[in-house]
C-alpha cells in the first residue's frame, strides 16, 4: 500500500509530466509552423527547382510520366483540310532578312506590299496583307530602338553582358553549317561502317540517355513527317525544290529551358541565347555521336538553322502540345523550352503524342493573350484560324516581330513575355510539380478552374503596355523583377534612376 505522501508525490510528478508534454507540444507546434514557413521559403528559392540545372544527366528533368497520356494523334493538331508543307516565305527570318537585304540594296519600303522585290516574300503578304503594316512598322521602330537603347545600358549592363556571352557561344561554328548536298553533308559525320543495334527500341533507349548526358532536359523521337519539312529550303544548296532526302528517316527532338530568373524578367533582362546555345551544342554532340556509330545526321538548331518546323515534330514525339501562344507546351517546363533536333537514318522506336488536356486549359486561360505587348495572340474562345490545313489560334508573327524590334534587348530580338506569364511556366518546386501532376489527371476540370481562379486573382501581371520600353510608352515592366545577379546597381558603379515593376518576394 502506498502512503498519502507517496500518492501526493506521484500526482505532482504526473501533473508536471503532463504540463511538460502540454507545453512541449505547444512549443513543437509553434516550431513546426516556423519550420514550415522557413522550409517553404527556401524551397521556393532552391535552384534545384530550376529544371535543367542538376537532375539532367539522370533524365529526371523529364519527370512527367507520359505513358498514361499517349494517343495516336495530338489533339491540338486538328487537321481540317489538306496539310500543306511550309514555304520559304512562311519562315519569318527568311522574310525579314530578305527585306533588309533589299533595303540595303536601295529599295525603299512603302505601304504597298506589291512592290516588295522578293517574289517569295511578296507571296506571303499576298496571303496576309494586313501583316505587312506590322512588318513595315518594325523598320521604323528598330530605328527608334537603336536611337534609344544605349541610354539604358546602366540599367541593363549585366543582363546584356550575360546575353552577349551566350550569343558569342551560339555563333561558334559547331555544329558546322552544311555546305553541300545533304546526301554528302549529312554523311560527313559518319566515321565508320554502321554498328548494328540489337533493335530500334535499344537504339531509342540509348539515344535518349545520350540526349540527357549532352545536357538536354527533354527528348522525344518521331518519324520525320514530311508535312513539316520546308519547301524550297536546304542549307548548303542555293536552289532546292520540294524533295526530301531519302536518308531522312527519323528525328530526335530535344530541348532545354531558358534560365528561369532572367526568363521571368522578360523583356530586357531575358535572353533565349543561353538555351539556344545549349540546344545547339547538344545537336552537334548528338550528330557526332551518331556519326561515330556510323549513321548520318542532320542537326537542326537555333537561331536559324533548320529545314523543318520544330514544334509540330516535338508534338509528334510526345514532348507536349500546341497552345494559344503557338509555342510547344510541355508538362514539365510549360512553354519555357528551346528545341533542337537531329534527323538521322538510324532506325529508332518512335514515341507517341500525348493528350494533356491543354486544349481546355488554353481555352479558359488567355493570360498570354492579355499580357502580349504587341497584341499578337488571339483572345478567341476556341482556335480561330487554319494554317496549312491545321486548326490553331490565330497568331500574328509580324506583330510579334514588330515588338521584338521595340523591346529593350541590345539586338532588338526576342520578347518572351508570353512564356514568362504562362501558368505552366513554373519551376519544379513541390507546389507547382503537384499541380502539374494533378491537372492533366483531373477529368472534371476542378483543378484547372481552381488553378486559373488563383492565377487570375492572386497573381500580379503588369499591363501589356508596361512591358514596352520607355521610348514606346512602357516602363520596362517584367513578370518578375530581375534577379539580384542581373541588377547593375548591386555590382557596378551606376546611379540607380529606375524603379522595378514586376513580382518580387513580397517583404
Amino acid at each position, binding site marked *: 500500500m502506498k502512503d498519502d505522501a507517496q500518492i501526493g508525490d506521484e500526482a505532482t510528478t504526473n501533473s508536471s509530466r503532463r504540463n511538460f508534454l502540454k507545453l512541449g*507540444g505547444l512549443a513543437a507546434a509553434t516550431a513546426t509552423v516556423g519550420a514550415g514557413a*522557413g*522550409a517553404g521559403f527556401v524551397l521556393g528559392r532552391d535552384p534545384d527547382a530550376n529544371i535543367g540545372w542538376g537532375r539532367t544527366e539522370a533524365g529526371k528533368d523529364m519527370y512527367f510520366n507520359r505513358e498514361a497520356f499517349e494517343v495516336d494523334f495530338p489533339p491540338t493538331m486538328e487537321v481540317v483540310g489538306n496539310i500543306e508543307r511550309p514555304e520559304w516565305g512562311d519562315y519569318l527570318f527568311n522574310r525579314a532578312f530578305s527585306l533588309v537585304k533589299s533595303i540595303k540594296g536601295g529599295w525603299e519600303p512603302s505601304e504597298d506590299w506589291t512592290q516588295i522585290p522578293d517574289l517569295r516574300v511578296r507571296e506571303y503578304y499576298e496571303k496576309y496583307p494586313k501583316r505587312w503594316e506590322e512588318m513595315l512598322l518594325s523598320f521604323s521602330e528598330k530605328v527608334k530602338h537603336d536611337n534609344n537603347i544605349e541610354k539604358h545600358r546602366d540599367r541593363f549592363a549585366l543582363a546584356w553582358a550575360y546575353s552577349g556571352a551566350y550569343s558569342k557561344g551560339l555563333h561558334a561554328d559547331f555544329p558546322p553549317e552544311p555546305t553541300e548536298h545533304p546526301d554528302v553533308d549529312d554523311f560527313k559525320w559518319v566515321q565508320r561502317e554502321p554498328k548494328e543495334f540489337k533493335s530500334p527500341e535499344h537504339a531509342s533507349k540509348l539515344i535518349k540517355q545520350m540526349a540527357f548526358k549532352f545536357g538536354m532536359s527533354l527528348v522525344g523521337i518521331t518519324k520525320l513527317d514530311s508535312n513539316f519539312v520546308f519547301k524550297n529550303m536546304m542549307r548548303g544548296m542555293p536552289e532546292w525544290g520540294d524533295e526530301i532526302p531519302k536518308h531522312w528517316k527519323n528525328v530526335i527532338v530535344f530541348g532545354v529551358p531558358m534560365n528561369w530568373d532572367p526568363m521571368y524578367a522578360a523583356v530586357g533582362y531575358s535572353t533565349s541565347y543561353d538555351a539556344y546555345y545549349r540546344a545547339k551544342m547538344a545537336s552537334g554532340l548528338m550528330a557526332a555521336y551518331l556519326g561515330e556509330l556510323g549513321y548520318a545526321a542532320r542537326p537542326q538548331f537555333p537561331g536559324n538553322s533548320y529545314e523543318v518546323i520544330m514544334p509540330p515534330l516535338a508534338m509528334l514525339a510526345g514532348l507536349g502540345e500546341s497552345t494559344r501562344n503557338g509555342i510547344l507546351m510541355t508538362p514539365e517546363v510549360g512553354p519555357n523550352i528551346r528545341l533542337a533536333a537531329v534527323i538521322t537514318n538510324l532506325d529508332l522506336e518512335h514515341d507517341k503524342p500525348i493528350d494533356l488536356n491543354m486544349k481546355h486549359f488554353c481555352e479558359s486561360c488567355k493570360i498570354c493573350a492579355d499580357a502580349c505587348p504587341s497584341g499578337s495572340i488571339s483572345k478567341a474562345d476556341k482556335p480561330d484560324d487554319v494554317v496549312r490545313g491545321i486548326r490553331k489560334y490565330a497568331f500574328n508573327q509580324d506583330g510579334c516581330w514588330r515588338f521584338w524590334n521595340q523591346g529593350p534587348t541590345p539586338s532588338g530580338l526576342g520578347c518572351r513575355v508570353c512564356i514568362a506569364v504562362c501558368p505552366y511556366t513554373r519551376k519544379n518546386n513541390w507546389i507547382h510539380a503537384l499541380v502539374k501532376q494533378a491537372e492533366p489527371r483531373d477529368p472534371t476540370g476542378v483543378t484547372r478552374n481552381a488553378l486559373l481562379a488563383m492565377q487570375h486573382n492572386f497573381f500580379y501581371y503588369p499591363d501589356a503596355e508596361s512591358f514596352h520600353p520607355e521610348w514606346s510608352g512602357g516602363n520596362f515592366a517584367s513578370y518578375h523583377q530581375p534577379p539580384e545577379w542581373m541588377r547593375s546597381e548591386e555590382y557596378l558603379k551606376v546611379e540607380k534612376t529606375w524603379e522595378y515593376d514586376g513580382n518580387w518576394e513580397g517583404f
Partner: protein
Amino acid sequence: MFPQSTLLDPLFWMVLGAIQVLVFTGASQWAKEYQLGMNWWRWSVVGFWWLSFILTIAGAFTLLGENEGNAGWYVLGFVGTLLVIGGAAILKVLVLLKPNPQ
C-alpha cells in the same frame, strides 16, 4: 530548409519529423485535460487539419521564396483564414461531441 547542403538538409527533415511526436503527444494531453474522448476519426480530422495548415504555410512561403510575392500573401491570407475558421469549427465540434462524464 538547407537546400544544397548534404548534411543539414536531411537532418532538418528528420528533426522536423521527430518533433511531430511531441506535437501529437502534447495535443493528446490537452485533449485529455478537456476530456474530448479522442478516437480514430477525431484524430484523423485533427491530423488532416494540421497537415493542411502546415502545407498552406509552406506553400505560401514557397511562393514568396520564388518571388511570387502577391500570390504568396494572397494564399496565406485567403486559404490560411479559411483554415483557421475550419480549425475553430473542428474544435467546436469536438467539444460539442465530447462524451458525457459518468
